[in-house]
């Protein structure tokens, strides 16, 4: 691998030496990735969601404060008893108002809520995924690099212990301790989801550090940190991206589960909360237009992460 010898050369030289093969690999990677329809599909879905997250206004028919019959804020009138009782209102197209996916019990448009919630799920997914990678990857690297030393042992024991704790309840406690805010939920998810990364990265590192160029670097007297971050990390990064994607998916679903258990920040627009509301307000079986869209959105978001993750896995795994 060019990364190995690269840094012993003169800068300009080493630059090309190091980057050309990388770019090469990227190109090859992409062509390999694009063989997977689901990989593409995942990117497309995620792309759409990202757009929703960034500029929801463009896609949503209303703001989240829009109320059926009354329209957009500032709202200076009230719903009549009749109108109130017509809520949650099934999909309506212009008569008496326009809400393609109907409304919830408060008269907010479901479609708008779903679209505005994308950012929340996106944020939680990526943040939690990133965070758990940030914890798992370095630990995995260290544990692997110092394999069969007390460091490795310590880390592995710790992982064992963490595995022993049931995930969701542990999360509930964490959130209960630190209070129900999106940030805490993210932290909670990350704290419990870095384990797999750590273990896999460790395995990778163990095999990588036997590779010749690492040996040579050792002989050349490179420091441990340098070897880890300069020579080994670049090669485990692809895999850790795979995990990032999968953790992100997991996080999205977990957050929904927490919401179901009532442990989610209700002021944030999120699909989980929408589902939580339909439950706590008792319309589960009476308002399909309220029950289905958030669930489907959740599913697609998580799925897109998985799709991307598994397509990338195929790119990164050496065999074939």
């Amino acid at each position, binding site marked *: 691998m060019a990364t190995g010898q690269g840094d012993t050369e003169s800068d300009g030289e080493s630059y090309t030496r190091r980057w050309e093969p990388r770019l090469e690999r990227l190109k090859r990677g992409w062509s390999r990735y694009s063989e997977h*329809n*689901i990989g593409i*599909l995942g990117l497309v879905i995620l792309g759409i969601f990202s757009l929703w997250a960034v500029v929801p206004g463009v896609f949503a028919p209303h703001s989240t404060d829009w109320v059926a019959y009354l329209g957009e804020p500032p709202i200076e009138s009230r719903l009549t008893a009749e109108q109130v009782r017509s809520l949650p209102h099934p999909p309506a197209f212009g008569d008496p108002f326009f809400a393609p996916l109907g409304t919830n019990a408060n008269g907010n448009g479901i479609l708008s809520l779903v679209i505005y919630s994308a950012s929340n799920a996106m944020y939680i997914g990526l943040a939690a995924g990133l965070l758990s990678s940030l914890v798992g990857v370095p630990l995995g690297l260290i544990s692997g690099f110092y394999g069969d030393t007390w460091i490795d042992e310590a880390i592995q*024991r710790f992982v*064992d*212990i963490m*595995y*022993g*704790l*049931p*995930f*969701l*309840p*542990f999360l*509930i*406690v*964490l959130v*209960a*301790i630190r209070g129900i805010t999106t940030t805490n939920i993210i932290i909670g998810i990350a704290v419990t989801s870095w384990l*797999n990364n750590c273990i896999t990265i460790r395995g990778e590192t163990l095999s990588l550090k036997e590779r010749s160029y690492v040996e040579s670097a050792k002989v050349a007297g490179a420091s441990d940190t340098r070897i880890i971050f300069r020579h080994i990390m670049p090669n485990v990064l692809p895999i850790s991206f795979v995990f990032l994607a999968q953790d992100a*998916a997991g996080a999205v*679903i*977990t957050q*929904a*589960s927490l919401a*179901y*258990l009532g442990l989610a920040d209700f002021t944030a627009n999120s699909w*989980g909360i929408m*589902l939580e509301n339909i439950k706590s307000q008792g319309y*589960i*079986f009476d308002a399909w237009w309220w*029950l289905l869209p958030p*669930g489907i959105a*959740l*599913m*697609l*978001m*998580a*799925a897109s992460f*998985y*799709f991307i993750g*598994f397509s990338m*896995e195929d790119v990164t*795994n050496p*065999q074939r």
Partner: protein
Amino acid sequence: MTRISGKYLAKRIVVSYLTLLVIMSLLFVLLRSMPGSFITSMISSGMTNEQIQQIRETWGLNEPLWRQYIDFMINYQTGNFGRSPTYNAPVADLMIRRMPRTLVLFGATFLIGFIIGPLVGMYLGWWRGSKKDKSIFSTSLLLYSMPSFWISWLFIWVFNYELGWLPSAYMFTQFPEFQWTAFTVMRDVLYHIALPIMSLTFIGWVGSMLIMRPTMNQVTDEGYVFLAHAKGLSERTVMIKHAARNALIPVATGAVVGLAFLIDGSIIIENVFNWPGMGQIIVTSVLNRDFPVAQATFFLLAVLVVIMRLVTDVVYTYLDPRIKFGEGE
């Protein structure tokens, strides 16, 4: 005839035990660091401080924390889980009542999931890249992406609310009219467990499939698979007896992770289906600060996982003759 050396097994058991101790300590700290206390549920207006102190006494809350910790650890060694303030009953009884229910739900799903998963994984891995593989794989990922409570609602909606075929709550008929025989009870349980299991396995099987598929695919390139073909064995024999048999080995390791996934799943499912098991109380007990119950539930689930670990290690040695634990794995 096992290839596990007694010495190794002993070592593992000791390690697992220590792990449990640490987990317990972690639990103690975590739960105690939650705001609020179940005392609030028992103290009422007009109570004198003496009374409150007395209650604190009863629940050992006046002891210094470290004392409480010691007691907690010691009691658990002796299987004394304490009393639940919210259930006003010995926690042990509660657990004895609920653990089996959870295990039933658990075991069933675990089994079904780990039969379907690897089977599908086997086929997909064998035919990797084929149209069938692609479509089935992506659908399974879709399933995997569904929030378990949501899919449960959909199932309830269809099979209970609309069709009225299956019950959506409980483990038994609450006030049974039928004769109470082993058979009828079995039937009754099956009738009630159907929906929960459906919901849980609907998602649960994917996990093991995801492990099986790639390993299966790697195995197909192995020399012994080629030889098996060359021997003139039928496709099925080669796939199952030679390829799948080897691909199963990593799946065994995955079982532990799968279990963790199941625990989460069943917590949700038990809440949705009012399945009176551990998953149901673990949430409420945490929210109610019912520490004795919360601790016990956490603890038992942890034990479950740790035991599972040991079991898989043993299974592992049977699956893969190359592995000899104890001689430095």
